[in-house]
């Protein structure tokens, strides 16, 4: 739906107005749909992607204005005459499907990049490189038709001869005997960023005023690791956790860059009277654009800007959604970088208004010892009760913090893993 004025609302639906009616809209932009005997040309508005503006109005059109894709997080590990790259698998929806990845390679930061198609894989080894020369890489995501839909931030590495004792990570390169990892990306301005190694907290840092963070972990042994990162906004709301498996090589620093933590999100009402506004708010990167998804019978998307502190707020008029249970989630865009959607929060549109209570940053579930964390202690408690008859003391805990089915099974561990804080 196209709405003139300041509204930026889109629904994948049939819709009408006093002067027109569109039935069965097709998600196909101009020149994407062709065959030997026809070509679908785009028109302003519905199938086209983009923003049309004039002095008195802005038009943000159609479904493809809101497709979901996040920029991949990329790791670069230098070797002898090569750089091993791996990146996070990207999921896309609402008109986009990930068809594959391209790696762009350059010897100058910022490019131009020489692109190579890789297919639908999440790792590549760039070989025949000159030792001692820094290389710069980006990963470009393509849709099913081969059109670029997202490009990662640049990651660099400098190959070093194996006799030199290891490669250097990042642009600095150089030989080193340390084994470790550099993690960098966007959190929230001046907020806490927590790093987990294999599920346990190893470091906490504070993002800068521009929301950027960078942290180095060294002294690790070679092997397969699962690093995870989450942020905490100024109201102690936690972001969803970003996890990244990576293999560390002896004597090499691996760079993982382009981490973009999803926005935090909350609502001011647990239940809202149908027709009244509900406020959706949270924090993300400064001056970014936040896309809020409201999951109803029809999924609704709206866009709102974040201020200099990364704070965003959107008043949703509930007349446009039906009564019942809903959930909302958000992602952010700054420059060419796009975060994944974050954790969803639930609300209800009904016959009364009930204000939401702050959970003070405590996980909704999985916290068995009520310390506002889900970590090794909670795992150990659950592991003890796994496949055992529950005690009278533990039954109410299982009901409120786990699946509530009166036993501890794999589903309860899955709930715990989802709400994990380390």
């Amino acid at each position: 739906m196209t709405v003139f004025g300041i509204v930026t609302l889109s629904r994948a639906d049939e819709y009408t107005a006093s002067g027109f009616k569109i039935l069965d809209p097709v998600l196909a932009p101009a020149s994407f749909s062709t065959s030997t005997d026809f070509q679908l040309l785009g028109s302003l508005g519905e199938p086209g992607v983009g923003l049309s503006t004039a002095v008195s109005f802005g038009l943000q059109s159609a479904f493809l204005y809101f497709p979901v894709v996040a920029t991949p997080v990329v790791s670069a590990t230098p070797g002898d005459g090569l750089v091993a790259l791996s990146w996070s698998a990207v999921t896309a929806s609402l008109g986009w499907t990930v068809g594959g990845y391209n790696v762009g390679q350059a010897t100058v930061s910022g490019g131009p990049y020489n692109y190579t198609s890789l297919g639908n894989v999440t790792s590549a080894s760039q070989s025949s490189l000159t030792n001692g020369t820094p290389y710069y890489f980006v990963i470009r995501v393509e849709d099913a038709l081969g059109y670029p839909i997202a490009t990662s931030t640049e990651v660099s590495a400098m190959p070093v001869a194996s006799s030199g004792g290891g490669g250097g990570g990042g642009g600095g390169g150089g030989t080193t005997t340390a084994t470790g990892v550099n993690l960098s990306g966007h959190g929230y301005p001046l907020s806490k960023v927590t790093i987990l190694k294999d599920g346990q907290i190893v470091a906490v840092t504070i993002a800068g005023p521009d929301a950027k963070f960078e942290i180095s972990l060294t002294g690790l042994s070679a092997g397969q690791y699962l690093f995870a990162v989450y942020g905490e906004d100024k109201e102690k709301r936690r972001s969803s956790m970003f996890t990244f498996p990576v293999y560390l090589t002896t004597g090499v620093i691996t760079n993982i860059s382009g981490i973009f933590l999803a926005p935090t999100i909350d609502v001011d009402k647990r239940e809202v009277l149908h027709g009244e506004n509900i406020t959706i708010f949270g924090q993300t990167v400064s001056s970014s654009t936040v896309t809020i998804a409201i999951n109803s019978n029809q999924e609704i998307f709206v866009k709102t800007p974040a201020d200099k502190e990364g704070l965003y707020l959107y008043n949703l008029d509930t007349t446009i959604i039906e009564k019942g249970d809903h959930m909302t989630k958000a992602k952010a865009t700054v420059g060419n970088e796009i975060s994944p959607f974050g954790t969803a929060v639930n609300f209800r549109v009904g016959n009364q208004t009930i204000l939401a209570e702050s959970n003070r940053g405590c996980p909704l579930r999985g916290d068995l010892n009520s310390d506002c964390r889900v970590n090794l202690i909670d795992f150990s408690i659950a592991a003890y009760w796994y496949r055992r008859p529950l005690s009278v003391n533990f039954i109410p805990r299982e009901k409120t913090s786990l699946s509530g089915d009166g036993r501890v099974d794999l589903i309860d561990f899955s709930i715990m893993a989802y709400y994990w804080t380390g």
Partner: protein
Amino acid sequence: MKKTFLILSFWFLVFSPVQAAVINFSVADNLLTAGEILVALNLDTEGQDINVVAGEIVIPASLKPIRILDGDSVLKFWIEPPQFADQRLTFAGMIPGGSSSARDSEGLLLFKFVIQGKLAELTQLSMNNLTVLLNDGEGTKLKTQMAWRQNLSPKEELDTIPPENFAPVLGRDPSLFNNDWFLAFLTQDKQSGVDYYEVSEGQTDGPWSRIKSPYRLHDQSRRTNVYIRAVDRSGNIRLATVILRPWYITLVYGGILIIVFIFILWFIRLIFRKLFWRSQSLVS
């Protein structure tokens, strides 16, 4: 050494192509010992974020289970560590925060295991109760699908590195051990994987008893230091020391220190007063 690689995949369950995970075995023979076959179990999540995997591999009688290698596993928290019992290999593990692999990729490594027998008999391996749960906060079960993989070549390396440093956590909870104090612990071994943990209360040299986390302390007064060692599947050991001291001991020690400090101040003041008095006497 000439190696023969045989890639096998098994369809365990066939469901709708929507939201399916693909489980793959890859096999390499002619390893360290003749007749031993290394098998790697991978899971292609088809781009979906998952956080729990569990199952049971049934091994035919013609194949002899030898050892398990889980150091590289993406399953960092074992609910049931992979183990052989009665020609079966059971496992259940969790990925804190979840993880995914790209669609049609080689997938996430769950673990490897070594068996002895003829390569051709591997096709008799089967899987029961395979469970893959989505990282969606609800534990939604993911369906599984089969596919062939042609590019896996697992290898086995000698493990001489002990498990990583770890710090057991002291805890107490009304729902556990009648609110007695316990220790929770976990570490990783990036090569062969952690095999088991042992504890000794009070003595660094044992005797050692095998334990699992959580471990209820025998000495609930928490006056005794506890030593926990992690042993990997190659026998390498990492020792963690838990220094325990009850709060009132700390309080007593603190009180004694304060008293000693006050006494020293009083003594210094006394000396100064005596010196001052002597100098005053000499002047007069």
